[in-house]
């Protein structure tokens, strides 16, 4: 994550832009598979792409350093009143 962080943020930003699908905004005629309006099919596909994206992110930007931190011995931080 430390080294590939910028790819994660950039890719997520690109997906947020792709979410604004103004190109299908007023398309009421096209139906995918003969029943699903294109605007809905696009966003169903978007959900699949989102899953694939986070799957890819976890393969190249997994926070190994944090995982290692969790494996260290537990410490307690006092959150009690002094």
């Amino acid at each position, binding site marked *: 994550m430390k080294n590939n962080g910028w790819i994660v943020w950039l890719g997520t930003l690109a997906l947020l832009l792709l979410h604004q699908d103004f190109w299908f905004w007023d398309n009421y005629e096209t139906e995918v598979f003969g029943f699903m309006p294109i605007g809905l099919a*696009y966003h169903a596909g978007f959900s699949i792409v989102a899953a694939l994206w986070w799957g890819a992110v976890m393969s190249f930007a997994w926070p190994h350093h944090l995982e290692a931190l*969790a494996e260290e011995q537990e410490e307690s931080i006092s959150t009690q009143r002094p």
Partner: protein
Amino acid sequence: MTPLIIIVCYLGLLLALGIISSRSFRGTSKDYFVASHSIGPFLLLMSVFGTTMTAFALVGSTGKAFERGIGVYGLMASISGLVHAAVFFLIGIRLWVYGKKYGFVTQIQFFRARFDSQRIGYVLFPILAMLVVPYLLIGIIGAGKTVLPVTAGAFPDLFPNAATPQFAGGIPVWLTGLVICGVVMTYVFLGGSRGAAWANTFQTIVFMAMGLVAFVFIANSLGGLTNASKVAIQINDQGEVVQPYRWDAANNQLVANDPPKVVGRIIEGESDTAGSYSPRPLLSRQVTTVELENVNKKTGEVRTFTREYGMSTWMFMTYLFIPLSVGMFPHLFQHWLTAKSARAFKLTVLAHPLCILIVWVPCVLIGIWATGILPPLDPTKVSGVLGQMVARLVSSPILSGFLIAGILAAIMSSLDSQFLCLGTMFTNDIVIHKLGSGKLSDRQVILIARGFVVGIVTLTYLLSLVAPQNVFDLAVWCFSGFGALFPLVFAAVFWKRVTKAGAYACILAATLSWFYFFAKSGFGSELVLGPGIMPVAVCFLISTAALIIVSLMTRPPSEETIKKFFPDKAS
């Protein structure tokens, strides 16, 4: 009576699951609050998904699609898939790591340590509790309103229901609420977070399956998917809203209306030019405002109301701040902490958008098909669209029973986590914090937590009896409040320069701006700003600005704090 038997069997199964899960209870407070960090990938996925999806995922999505069309999926579902998964990966895993290493079981413990401030807990606690309680009320009242119509006529002597004569004999809202609260309280009381995770998993499977089953039956009744897609209302060349088909109940089949039945007329499209509106307004997101007519069958009285199909670009863009709320949900924090390892999050991050797809796409399609089958309904009645479609097109009491069980499953899978979370917060952030953890044995801590769970369930149930029944409108306001606080958790895990004063400024700015808009809405009604901007977007920007400006103006946190929370970044 059949639906009632199915519902009772379902609740019995849940209770049995609670009792079985309690046998795995290890007797420690850590086990009660965070299941000793033992929950694996599948249970984590199901419990996190079940917690974030309320009854809205089934009945709300269908109703909203009935009101506005397919855009509802992009507005609420696909953006949630992206944003929720991002929050689980970028924030959830970090909070799990801090929680495991430093022994946190509540969000407030994390913030107290991160900002090196004991008082921040007392500031945050009432705000978080205030935002969770209406969310609980929505579930309890929603459950009652779901069960009442399907049991109408079953017990005419016991429940004459003078206030709602159309549902005479149905199980009243207060009784369903009582039973639901009793069942949830029992398994949370016995099994703590493990009981909630097990029950959530079962309930999530039930409500996902029921949504799909309802979809398959309804699509079959309409003659298959291609036929069903032609059913939704249309706007003809004269600007009239028409239903091209109708459901012939006597022969159980879809028949063409010749001529198409007029149910309303266009008021305005996004463009004034005639013919520029969407002729199939529910299949696009173009804004088309219409006036619809609803005829009261008994009196013959015609009532008209306006409806906006589609949605504005601004609303679509700014709605993305709503799903950020999951980052600040205290009950989700507790679920994250139950994970066995950081790797247990992988399935949740990957599959969450797909689970949303599986639940929402069928419901949105049912919602738009319903516009051609059902008469126009005003916004207060659209939550009944899914139930009405099942009742009309499938007319199977068994399926109705299972569908109601699915809706209750979606409701209870959120209720349990929220009850447990409030009990955990009261115990750890108030009682133990005041007394000091060394002064209480583990057994006493569990006893206090269980006492709080019982107390909170009782109090919330009593509140549900006197709360206004239209609390459903409050859901978006709850999410908006949590969304406005999101910069706090984001900065806490990513920005080492954020200071205690910056955190206070963020909380204050989020709370005040949220309250301003909440009051402006008339305390809970829908409110959009200018061209359709969601108030949460403005609250988010204000709280972010306050956090950044005040942090940069005040002394940075100590090196010791930074080393604890940013081990890779400390100099």
